[in-house]
């Protein structure tokens, strides 16, 4: 792990993720389709994990999860645990392989959304909240997974651009 390089990702996470959480709570409700809110934070964290690997993926998941928990009505920490678990699994894949296949980030976000909500439902059930697994999966989770996957088509490009800004590739000088 290169601590100096990780520092740039950490500093970016410190300003970007609170802003994303703010947008997730205020703006994303207006982009809801049939009550399904797109998961801007989840998509960003997954994309960063794909592009930067496990260390930064989990760092972003941890900070992003805490930011989401501030706005959420779920038990504090639910988003943090769910995002960290998702980021750890996503980052297990080979990042360069993921980068080079255009459709893989889409499928990854689809699967990550389902996993995220499964973890959340499990935590909710464990904390004595009423959970109807089948209905929740059918009505909320699957549509959200499809919505997030489609939304990731432009967002993955944006995240790649952000990565290029945070970690500029050194140019060869002749």
């Amino acid at each position, binding site marked *: 792990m290169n601590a100096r390089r990780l520092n740039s990702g950490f500093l970016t996470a410190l300003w970007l993720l609170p802003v994303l959480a703010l947008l997730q709570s205020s703006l994303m409700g207006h982009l809801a389709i049939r009550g399904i809110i797109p998961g801007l934070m989840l998509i960003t964290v997954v994309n960063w994990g794909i592009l930067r690997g496990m260390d930064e993926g989990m760092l972003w998941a941890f900070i992003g999860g805490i930011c989401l928990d*501030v706005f959420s009505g779920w038990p504090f920490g639910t988003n943090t645990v769910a995002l960290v678990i998702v980021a750890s699994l996503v980052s297990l894949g080979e990042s360069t392989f993921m980068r080079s296949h255009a459709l893989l980030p889409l499928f990854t976000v689809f699967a990550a959304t389902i996993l995220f909500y499964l973890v959340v439902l499990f935590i*909710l059930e464990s904390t004595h909240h009423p959970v109807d697994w089948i209905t929740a999966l059918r009505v909320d989770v699957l549509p959200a997974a499809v919505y997030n996957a489609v939304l990731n088509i432009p967002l993955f490009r944006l995240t790649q651009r952000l990565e290029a800004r945070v970690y500029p590739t050194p140019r060869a000088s002749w």
Partner: protein
Amino acid sequence: MVETRGGRRFAAFFFVAAFLVLLLGHWLKPVGDMALTVAAPFEAVITAAATTVGDAVSGVVEGPSLRAENERLRLQNETLIRHNIALQQQAHENQLFRRMLRYSDANNRLDLLKAQVIGSDPNNLAQYIIINRGSRDGLRTGMTVLDAGGYFVGAIEDLMSNASKVLLMTSPSSSVGAIDLQTRAHGLVEGTYAGRPQFHFVVTRDSIRPGDFIVTSGQMNLFPQNLYLGQVLSVTRNNVSLFQSADILPGVDFHSLEVVQVVRNFVPSAPTRLVTGP
């Protein structure tokens, strides 16, 4: 990807830290509340801007669905007018009786505080909204929240100084004592993941019919009486079950909720313990 031992330790650290946040969430909540207090004004600005833009866009995009909704509301309005005429007659009679009996109802006039909806829960499963009024405006946990038309929205669950989180009646965690206005059948209106609340625990000998109005019953003194919850869409009966249930069409359109009203002069006072221990 080859993970170094340091990398694995780094990942393990975040796993442990995330679970600690969940386990110690109760103690960390004040920090989260403080963060939300700071974020609330920014959230209000973003929401106001998004609402202005969203109104313009939705007018173009949602044209066909708005027409269908308009038709549905027109029919509902006609029904309500008929009911209103009947109720006005009853209100007139009621007024006469009250005068005769010198009856005074302490909760007849609700002290309502207007609030802006500045945010919603960032995820799909939890149904909360965030409003721009908090403890400094005299709000307390459990207070009833209505929409601009006086229909039941939910109750305050979490309180900051300048903002509050409101649990919506459509949330699976919400349960409201309710009564069928026409047949006086009692039950509970509970939220579901499918989006439409249900009128549960209505004994099969009681009657509920599609089109009936469901209002708060005021039982257990959790919410004021006679607040409109919704209308019965369909009834599900089972020969072997003691209870029947019904799908409810809420009076509130939760997707376009911008302004709400908080009932300030009704503080829930449910008994915390019904039977004393030995």
